[in-house]
């Protein structure tokens, strides 16, 4: 579950105490590798090897080396342009709305902490339990005017059947609503926790200086949690660019309404399974992997959320 990765605040990093040098007896090295070896093996086989094998596959066609042939074939596929446009539009719509929802709710809740605020966090968080195909099923009901508790709203938007809400551009709107419902809650809890961890004296100082609640939020709290904000944006961008499950499941409910190659990952899946063209599948999924890696790299180097060098500290 993406939203559950736990960020570390960049502010609190203890000065590493000197670590006593220990002898490197061979017995110790053996013990170390007995304990960490199995994990290292899994990391190699299920973390690195797939990428390496895909790289090799992407340069092979019909059993022989074919240079960039698979890559250019993917780039020339007209379906790629459509899929990339869909995913980009979805991200452009989803990311700002998600961020706005998370920030506004976390800040509003934090303005008055207490039992109500904790109960509301649970309400916002629970939809995170309904993911994947269950989420698609639930939201199919939510967009069917016959059964939906939101039917007045649907009527207002001129949606007379579930199919209406799945056709054309409205699919992106539906995915955005689903994406916010499923993912916002986890981030709200994380951001609320980050706000709680802010030093009290700074906030009090702002209050003493007569800053309004709004000014305190905008000029004091927001700058202090901006690493978290960046983290929410980057990891949501990374996971959103891989969108696959929702359009896949929604397609089965309304065949013909949504293209089976609607998203980039869906296209790569079609290459691999229906076309049986592993070379093209490898090339496209490596391009998507590069996006994920880039996001991970930005998180590590720019937000300092996961300080691996502080691992030398204790």
């Amino acid at each position, binding site marked *: 579950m993406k939203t559950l990765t736990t960020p570390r605040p960049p502010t609190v990093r203890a000065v590493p105490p000197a670590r006593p040098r220990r002898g490197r007896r061979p017995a110790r090295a053996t013990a170390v590798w007995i304990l960490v070896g199995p994990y290292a093996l899994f990391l190699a086989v299920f973390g690195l090897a797939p*990428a390496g094998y895909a790289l090799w596959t992407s340069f092979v066609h019909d059993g022989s080396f074919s240079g960039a042939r698979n890559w250019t074939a993917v780039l020339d596929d007209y379906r790629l342009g459509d899929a990339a446009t869909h995913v980009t539009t979805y991200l452009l719509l989803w990311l700002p709305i998600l961020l706005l929802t998370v920030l506004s709710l976390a800040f509003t809740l934090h303005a008055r902490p207490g039992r109500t605020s904790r109960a509301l966090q649970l309400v916002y968080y*629970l939809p995170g339990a309904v993911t994947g195909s269950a989420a698609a099923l639930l939201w199919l009901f939510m967009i069917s005017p016959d059964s939906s508790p939101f039917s007045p709203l649907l009527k207002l938007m001129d949606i007379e059947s*579930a199919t209406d809400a799945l056709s054309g551009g409205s699919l992106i709107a539906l995915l955005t609503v689903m994406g916010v419902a499923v993912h916002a809650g986890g981030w709200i809890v994380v951001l609320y926790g980050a706000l709680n961890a802010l030093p009290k004296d700074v906030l009090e100082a702002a209050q003493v200086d007569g800053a309004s609640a709004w000014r305190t939020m905008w000029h004091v709290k927001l700058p202090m949690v901006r690493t978290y904000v960046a983290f929410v944006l980057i990891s949501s961008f990374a996971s959103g660019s891989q969108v696959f499950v929702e359009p896949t499941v929604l397609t089965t409910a309304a065949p013909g309404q949504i293209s089976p190659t609607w998203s980039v990952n869906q296209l790569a899946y079609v290459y691999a399974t229906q076309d049986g063209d592993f070379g093209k599948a490898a090339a496209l999924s490596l391009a998507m992997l590069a996006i994920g890696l880039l996001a991970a790299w930005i998180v590590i180097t720019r937000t300092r959320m996961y300080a691996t060098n502080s691992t030398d500290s204790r």
Partner: protein
Amino acid sequence: MSEAMTAVSRGARALYLLGAAVFFGLPLLWLLLAPTRTADDLTTGSPLDFGSLGQVGEAWSHLTSYNDGEITLWIGNSVIYAAASVVLALLLCVPAGYVLAKQEFAGRRVLLTLSVVTMIMPPAALVLPLYLEMSALGLTGTVWSVILPLSFYPFGVYLAFLHFQANLPDSLLDAARVDGASELRLFWSVALPLARPVIALIAFFGFVRCWTDFFLPFVMLSDDRTFTLQLGLMSLLQSTGAVNNSSGFADLDIHQPEAALAGLVACAPLLIGFVLAQRFLRTGLLAGAEKG
């Protein structure tokens, strides 16, 4: 600021929080109520009525008669895959996290960096490369193609790493060394007894991850008797003709209450887990933040 202004801003705040609660809560509430009602009632009655518990039993018996009780098979598969992956992940993560936190050795930095990178990367990005690898090995379609990749869980290693770093003092290890304990013995008798909280945390998040995963089993498995519940839900929607016409769910063999019940079963373990383990969940979410 005048009192009237304060009242207005307080009202606006309450209205915003309440509106959000409706947006997040209403679909769930509907999902909880839907299996208690008949299909007719669902389309004609008011959206949030409660039917009867007897109706839930009826919907369940309809569900279990679908394809000779395939749904119980899917539930069993989901449980088995998740349990196997979580146990295997724990066996790999806890010792690895301990060693990375407490021992100097060549390759440590590389392992840590690779773990963090693979942890931050969206898991979906590796699914198709894994599929290519598994089909080269001839493992696609087997349970191993799902269980093995899922038991590689770098986030679990990271949690164990943080836990041992914060809660296992070097002095404790050194004292045991002086007493002549071997390095393996140290892990078994000193580190492991202190690891209970992090074992629970890894098991919880690992289970959530395995139970909800869709893309990986979807790509790897093709025989519907090996499906997980998440995949089964989709095939249920597909083969019962779910929303084939513009009138929504009207011509389902399995009707709306049955579909809603299946959806509810699919997310029930997580809903229950999230409600029961609230405090635990919060510490998990913020584990890194608090131990920094």
